[in-house]
């Protein structure tokens, strides 16, 4: 007992010695941990390791991990998925600044231009045009990847991973209780789904005490009023030109008129939870202007629902509408460039998209020839229109995001203009054009 550790007198020198070794141990721990971390590299056939980073919900995260396992076997390298939780942009930026970013990563529309300008991501043109790539650029709808080019229209710095076109989801029960005998999908099939038809439906819904449609300041929610009317959004050089286009002005005028009449409610800059989604799920909203991502949450509702394309002047056409998308890009300082390119190619290829998106129900493939994914399960009934909308649609105009300041200022300006009752189509167009074109 007298020799026990606790009964020994405390020797200052011994305490100091222990303290020094303890401090050294603590200081060395991160270095040792870092050394230990390297043991994970080295693929099944010695092709090294390659990592991609992306935002992902829990379901997607699991699927991406399985994709990584499968791809590891295919490209003979250890493929790792790095899920980024929280503020993706801020975290990616920190990783890039510190030289610790993954070999490939998702890039949202607000960051693409800056990453290209700062040479943080590499041009994929040569790879996608080579025999090594399992996918060709022709497989992507042309409107989906323009935003991945540099400001001067050269290069290709990202490939769309999947997409979500702007469509109108509608609540069949709300429409029938408002006294409508035909729903929008039936009107479209009958060739009479034009803007007058939409206005009439919205008026009837409003008269029934429910809300018709809620729109936010996101480009996805208002730019269709220009192009679905047949208006021209931008010219070949990428400049915004809708201020000078009569059809575009007519479309914007229609939208502003609906805000004023109360047929459409402006939801401001609120996030998805409080814009159309919550009300639509609560059975209080006739239309919700979102993409296919709404499907997983709608599967459990009790009311009937379907989708319709945005209306057209003829009532029977699917017009060009916004398509939300993100791209996967190659880190310019990728540690394993060759395998990272293989990863990207396989990720967006037919097989890759099929693996990632089948059964997920929250996106539409960004390449042609995979129509069955959007229509799987037959839900919603007219899911084929997702594919048609993607084929004709367009991703965010480069002019909206070519400057990070413009990208952040645009929604704020649109918010201000939509809230101002004196805004006209002309004043709206002028203000937006001035900001975007400079």
């Amino acid at each position, binding site marked *: 007992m007298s020799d026990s550790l606790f009964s020994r007198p405390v020797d200052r020198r011994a305490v100091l010695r222990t303290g020094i070794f303890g401090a050294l141990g603590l200081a060395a721990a991160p270095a040792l941990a870092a050394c230990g971390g390297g043991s994970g590299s080295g693929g099944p056939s010695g092709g090294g390791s390659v990592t991609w980073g992306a935002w992902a919900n829990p379901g997607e995260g699991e699927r991406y991990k399985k994709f990584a396992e499968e791809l590891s076997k295919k490209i003979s390298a250890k493929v790792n998925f790095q899920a980024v939780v929280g503020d993706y942009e801020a975290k990616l930026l920190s990783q890039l600044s510190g030289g610790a970013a993954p070999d490939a990563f998702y890039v949202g529309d*607000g960051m693409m231009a800056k990453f290209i300008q700062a040479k943080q991501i590499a041009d994929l043109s040569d790879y996608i045009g080579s025999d090594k790539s399992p996918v060709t650029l022709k497989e992507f709808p042309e409107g989906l990847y323009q935003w991945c080019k540099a400001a001067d229209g050269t290069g290709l710095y990202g490939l769309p991973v999947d997409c979500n076109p702007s469509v109108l989801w509608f609540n069949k029960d709300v429409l029938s209780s408002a006294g409508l005998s035909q729903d929008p999908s039936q009107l479209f099939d009958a060739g009479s789904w034009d803007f007058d038809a939409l206005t009439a439906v919205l008026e009837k819904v409003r008269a029934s005490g429910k809300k018709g449609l809620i729109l936010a300041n996101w480009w996805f929610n208002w730019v269709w009023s220009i192009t679905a009317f047949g208006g021209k959004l931008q010219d070949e050089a990428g400049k915004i030109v809708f201020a000078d286009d009569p059809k575009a002005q007519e479309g914007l005028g229609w939208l502003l008129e609906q805000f004023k009449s109360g047929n459409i409610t402006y939801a401001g800059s609120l996030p998805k939870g409080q814009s159309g989604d919550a009300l639509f799920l609560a059975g209080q909203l006739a239309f919700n202007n979102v993409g296919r991502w709404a499907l997983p949450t709608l599967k459990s509702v009790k009311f009937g629902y379907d989708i319709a394309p945005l209306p057209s002047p003829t009532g029977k056409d699917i017009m060009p509408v916004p398509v939300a998308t993100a791209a996967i890009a190659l880190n310019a300082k990728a540690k394993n460039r060759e395998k990272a390119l293989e990863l990207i190619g396989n990720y967006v290829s037919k097989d890759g998209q099929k693996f990632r998106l089948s059964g997920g129900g929250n996106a539409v493939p960004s390449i042609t020839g995979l129509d069955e994914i959007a229509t799987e399960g037959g839900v919603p009934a007219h899911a084929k229109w997702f594919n048609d909308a993607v084929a004709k649609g367009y991703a965010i105009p480069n002019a909206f995001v070519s400057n990070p300041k413009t990208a952040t200022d645009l929604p704020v300006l649109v918010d201000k203009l939509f809230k101002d009752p004196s805004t006209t189509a002309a004043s709206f167009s002028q203000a937006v054009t001035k900001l975007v074109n400079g």
Partner: protein
Amino acid sequence: MAIDTQVRPSARTAPSRPWRKVSRRRRKDTIAAVIFLSPQLFGLIVFMLGPLGFALYLAFSHWDGFGTATFAGLSNFTELFDNPRIQRSAINTVWFTVLQVPGVMVTAFLFALFMQKAGKMTSVYRLGFVAPVVTSSVAVATIWLYLFNPDISPVNTALKAIGLPAPNWLQDPSFIIPSFAIVGIWQGLGYQLVMFMAGLQSIGASYLEAAELDGCSAWQKLRHVTVPLLSPTILFLSITSIIGSFQVFDYIYVFMDTNAPDEARTIVYEIVQMAFREFNFGAASALAFLLFLVLLGVTGLQMAAQKRWVHYAE
């Protein structure tokens, strides 16, 4: 010479020996202290002082997050002063502070007074009040996002039921900042309540008994005994609340995402937007530095003013 050499050292060393011993021991103690503190100091330097110094350097630089920063002089600061959105954000931040700080302090103080009489239920109530404190701000904001929904919110339904106008909380420009303040008060209440309860319990019963013997009413006891003796707690809570309210960000980020309208933006929201959305780290750091100076000034004023109204019992 021989005698000389024998005498001199003893003459020199004899009186200085104890001093040297003390000095040596002190040096050893200092070294030991530094060694023991070094892990913490390392963390402080790397994760606190380093970034602070870097932010200060960036405030006088142009830097987009990549490559090399270039010297900008005071241009980041002039850019901020010329930016009407920053001015609006500053006003919003002050307005939030004006609503939230007194709101949460008065509410917490009143509840703390009531809780003094809650008896056995005190711990139950305390748990209820503290629950929002330990809930993440993002979860709190998500709940309130539903409660502020103008169409399906039970709050608005209740207001309509009693004939009151139901505001469009997060859309009406005049209600946005008050909405944030309501959430801030709700979440901050528990912490301040606990602090006030601790402060109230530390007030000696003899003071209140003496006041009673002097014929003081309940109101007079509260005003002339309780509040003055609680003044150190009030000072502490006011300093920490003001600092916290000037840094409000998380609610707005959850409520408005990255597209908050001008009426909803606060200074820290602008800092994040400028840095991570606009890649303007120089201006963002300059704004952070200005915020630091403002908070330093406000806290300094509070500390200076405390001599006039804060009473420390014994």
